[in-house]
């Protein structure tokens, strides 16, 4: 049985299960619970050019079947990552996909260039974080701006380039095409949804940042529709992200057209869920007599 999946020329995952950015830090904590070599790949916490302190607390809030977060992309910065974290990730037999964001086009390009080094398997451009004032989502709302940014980053790196799209657009298919035409090798669909919660006793928002991003099983059906819509529009691979907690969820996203899945919030409540999802996927393929992951990808029957 072949459970490997191809995301770009030179980027083939041994299985389609990835961590998601922002819920896996830089891998060290999870490595104390399981062997990271189990994963198809690790997607790191989003990095900025300089270290960032993030938002005021409270930064998280539980909601029905999910959670809000407004961490604000707190991170150690690209230099500290390359020096202190990347070598450690290199000790595992897994692909390392480095998530990053900038506050200006040049900064995205500069970071892509800095990450064009050994040990980095691919880079994932974040143009969709709802929780920061500058950078992030402002590049992910207009197809022309996105196309220009992706093209610029494309020229700055030899690595496979993944673009993580925002779900908060009228026509996500247009954004996906803009990124593809700009030179993206793959697309991640998608990010958290801007949302909020209020405490009726204190009359205050539950998050220090007032609004945050909704994730978890609550958003899975929406994410599934987005992946289905995008994968019909583009010819490049789609990586699904949004509320995946079980192998069934993973199968649903593969059927909808995804070539791989990222697990985020689910790993906060169940840090060992990655192995269970991979095993469940293998059992499903055995039960259905499937030889390869490609026998699942995009095999949704709508007729």
């Amino acid at each position, binding site marked *: 049985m072949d459970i490997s999946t191809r995301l770009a020329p030179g980027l083939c995952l041994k299985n389609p299960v990835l961590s998601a950015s922002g819920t896996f830090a830089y891998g060290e904590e999870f490595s104390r619970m399981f062997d990271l070599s189990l994963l198809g790949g690790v997607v790191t916490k989003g990095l900025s050019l300089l270290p960032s302190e993030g938002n005021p607390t409270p930064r998280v809030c*539980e909601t029905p079947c999910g959670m809000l977060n407004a961490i604000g992309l707190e991170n150690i910065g690209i230099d500290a990552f390359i020096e202190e974290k990347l070598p450690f990730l290199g000790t595992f037999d897994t692909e390392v996909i480095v998530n990053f964001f900038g506050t200006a086009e040049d900064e995205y390009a500069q970071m892509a260039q800095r990450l064009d080094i050994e040990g980095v398997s691919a880079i994932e451009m974040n143009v969709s974080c709802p929780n920061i004032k500058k950078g992030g989502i402002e590049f992910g709302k207009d197809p022309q701006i996105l196309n220009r940014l992706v093209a610029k980053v494309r020229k700055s790196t030899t690595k496979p380039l993944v673009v993580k799209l925002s779900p908060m657009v009228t026509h996500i298919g247009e954004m996906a095409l803009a990124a593809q035409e700009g030179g993206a090798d793959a697309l991640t669909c998608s990010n958290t949804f801007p949302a909020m919660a209020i405490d009726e006793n204190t009359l205050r928002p539950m998050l220090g940042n007032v609004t945050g991003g909704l994730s978890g099983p609550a958003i899975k059906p929406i994410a599934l529709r987005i992946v289905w819509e995008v994968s019909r529009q583009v010819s490049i691979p789609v990586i699904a992200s949004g509320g995946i907690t079980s192998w069934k969820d993973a199968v649903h996203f593969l059927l909808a057209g995804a070539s791989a899945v990222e697990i985020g919030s689910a790993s906060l409540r169940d840090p060992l869920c990655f192995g269970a999802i991979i095993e469940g996927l293998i059992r499903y393929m055995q039960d259905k007599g499937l030889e390869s992951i490609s026998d699942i990808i995009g095999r949704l029957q709508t007729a």
Partner: protein
Amino acid sequence: MKECSALVKDNRRVGQDTYLMTLECEFSPFTPGQFLMLRLTGTCEPFLRRPLAILSYRERAIELLYKVRGGGTSLLAGTKKGEALSVLGPLGKGFSDPKPEEEAVYVAGGTGLPPILALAEKTRRGRLIIGARTRDDIPLWNRMQNIAGVEPTATTEDGSLGIRGVATQALGDLLETIQSPCVIYACGPTGMLKQAARLAQGSGARCEVSIEEHMACGFGVCSACVVRTTTGNQKVCTQGPVFDASCIEWGI
């Protein structure tokens, strides 16, 4: 740290909305101040685990003391003997031991009792101050009175148990009577911790505080539970929850 399945052995009400739960599981030795993350169900509701300080662990039995505050803890209060829960822990950095020459003072405010009681039961020496609004908010008072080597004092705002007033008032009074080097261990509301830190600074005592902040993962990956310190943001779940009080930026 590891994940394990635990069986509820006992779950009884011991005060106003406060429960003492005993879980049976093959856990690990812990340091008072450390906590665990409890997952209540196999479904998505409630989605996140609940962080709870460890009160004790011996002979495959974990004791947890918790107050019902919302949907998750009220579900927890409803769990019955024999039900299985998922436990992740022990997590975080606990309290240091008092040095041989140090007089130990333990201060707990309201729901801050479990790690403080755990520490007093481990060291078996010093003075313990528990403060709450009223008598019903002080669970396990008998147990506190029966720790050999530890002298307990209760303070209540309404005077229904012990001294009328707040815990930090009693702490201030106590510190004036102690001449030897002293260490204060505190867990409770932020205002109380801040006041304990101020009193410690004034009297030259060492002070460790256990900080509470909203958490999602509990093991250091999500960066939700940060606290501002003199060296920048630190994660309460892995770099705390116990911090040297002089490192915390308390704000105004």
